[in-house]
C-alpha cells in the first residue's frame, strides 16, 4: 500500500504553491495516506484484462475545424486581473526563470 510521508506532502505543497504550517502537515499527511490507500484498493478489484483508464468516455479523435471563433475583448479578458498595464496582465516580479 502506498504510504505518503510528511516530507512528500511538504514537497507537493511547495510545488503547488500552497503554504502549509507544521501543524497542517502533521494533520494532512496521514489523511492523504488513507485516501491513496482507498484509491489503490481499486487496483485490487481490476483484473489483468482491465487496462488503466484515464477517460470515462470511450471516445477518440474529437477534433475541431481550424476556423476562428470570436473570443473575448481585451476589456473582458483583463476584467478579472488584479493589475493591468498597457493592456497586459501585470504580475509581480518573477523569481526563478523562464520555462
Amino acid at each position, binding site marked *: 500500500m502506498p504510504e505518503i510521508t510528511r516530507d512528500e506532502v511538504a514537497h507537493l505543497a511547495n*510545488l503547488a504553491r500552497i503554504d502549509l504550517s507544521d501543524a497542517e502537515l502533521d494533520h494532512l499527511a496521514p489523511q492523504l495516506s488513507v485516501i491513496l490507500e482507498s484509491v489503490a484498493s481499486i487496483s485490487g478489484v481490476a483484473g489483468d484484462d482491465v487496462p488503466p483508464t484515464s477517460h470515462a468516455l470511450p471516445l477518440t479523435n474529437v*477534433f475541431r475545424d481550424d476556423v476562428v471563433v470570436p473570443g473575448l475583448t481585451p476589456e473582458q479578458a483583463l476584467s478579472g486581473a488584479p493589475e493591468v498595464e498597457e493592456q497586459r*496582465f*501585470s504580475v509581480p*516580479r518573477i523569481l526563478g526563470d523562464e*520555462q
Partner: protein
Amino acid sequence: MTDTLVAFDDVLASYDPAMGLEVHVELNTVTKMFCGCPTEFGAEPNTQVCPTCLGLPGAMPVVNGKAVESAIRIGLALNCDIAEWCRFARKNYFYPDMPKNFQTSQYDEPIAFEGFMDVDVDGETFRVEIERAHMEEDTGKATHVGGATGRIHGADHSLIDYNRAGIPLIEIVTKPILGAGAKAPDVARAYVSQLRDLIVALGVSEARMDQGNLRADVNLSLSPKGSGTLGTRSETKNVNSFRSVERAVRYEMSRHAAVLDAGEKVLQETRHWHEDTGVTTSGREKSDAEDYRYFPEPDLVPVAPSREWVEELRGTLPENPVAKRARLQGDWGYTDLEMRDVVAAGVVGLIEETVAAGASPQAARKWWLSELGRRANDAGVDITDLGVAPAQVAAVQALVDGGSLNDKLARQVFDGLLAGEGTPEEVVAARGLAIVSDEGALSAAVDGAIAANPDVADKIRDGKVAAAGALIGAVMKEMRGQADAGRVRELILEKLS
C-alpha cells in the same frame, strides 16, 4: 563573469561531444491548438484570447484537427512511426506565461517517434536520429518592466500578453547525436537548417526563426575521448538562427572542456544564449523544483489516427528536400560549392521560381546570391521578405539578355523595384535606364575619350590592349553607364588599330 574557454582543437583532443537538439515549430494554423482564437502575429496585446486559452474555470479545450494533421505530416517527413493511440498530458508548473498553471503537452505517448533525418555536411551524410515529435501549446509573452536590460534580473514586475498562449507547437527531439567530433557545430547547424527546409516544404509553419516560429534548444555534453560514456549536459535555450546554433555548440564545447580540465563538474543547468556577444550565461539549475507531475489530460480524449488517414497524409508529403536539392543541382549545372552557397543563403526556392520564370540558372544564382542577398542583409530582412519577386528578377535578366540593360543598369532597376516604382519595364522607362544603342552617340563619346586621354590612346596604338579599360571607363562615365561595355571596347580598338 567570463567563462574560461578551451581552444576548439584542444577540446577535440581530449573529449567527444554529444548533442541533443530540441526544436519547437510553431504551426501556421489559423486558430490555436485547443480553442478557436486566431493566431495572427503582431496583434494588439490580449486581443486573441478566450476563456480556454486564459485558463478560466470551466472552459473546455477541443483539439484543432488541422494541427494534428500537421503533426502527423511532420512525423512522416522525419521517417517516424505514427502513434496508433496517444494522449495529451498536463505538464504542471507555476509560471505566469501559462495562465492555466499547466501546459497541455504530450508526455510518454508522443504522436510521432523513432525517426531520422539525413543531414548533409560538406558533402558527407550524417544521420540524426529522431526520438520523438509531440504536440503541445505555446506560452504567453512576458515583458519585464523595471530591469535595465528588459531581462528578468532587476525587473520589478512583468506584463503578460496571452495572444501566443495556446498556439500549436510541435516539439521535435533528437536522440543523442554522437560521433560528430569536430563537425558537431556544423551538424547541429545543418540539422536545424534542413529541418527548416522540410517544414517550409511541408507548408506547416511560417518557419521564421526571427519571429520565433522555429526555436532551437541545444543540449551539449562532453565525455573523455573514447570513453563511450555521456557527460553532464547543459541546455542552451532559444537559439534563434542557424549560425547561432553552430556558435552555441562551439561555445559550450569550449566552456565544458575548461570546467572538466579544471577537475570540476559541469552543472546540469539551463543556459541563455546571447546573440550579440556569442556567449551563454547560466540560467537556472535543474533541480527537483522541476517536478512537472505529468498526468493524462482529462479534458481531451485520446488521438487515434487511423492507418488510412496516416497513409493519405503520407501521400501529401513533398519531395524530400535533400533529394530535391540533388535533382536541382543536376538540372542547374551548379558545382558543389555553388549549390552549398545557395543552400546556405536560403535562396534555393527563389532560384527555382526565377528559373521557372525564364532566367538561366547562373543568372538567377548571381542576382539572388550577390546583389539581392546583400540588399536583404543591409536591410536586415529575410531575403524572401525583400520585396523583389522571382518573376521580376527573371524579367530584369531578360532585359539584360536582350541587350537593353547591362548589369550595372540592372542594379538600378532593382533600386526602382524596391522603391515600388512598378514593373522592371516601367522602372527602365521612368528612370531612362536603357542602354544607348545609338552608334553615332557612342562613337562620338569614344572619340571624346581618346582625345582627352592621348597617353592612353598611344599605349593602345602600341599594342597595349589592356590599357583600353581606362578609355572604356571614361566612355561609360560619359554615357552615364548606359552603354554596352563590350561594344565600346570594340569601337575603341577599331579606332586605334
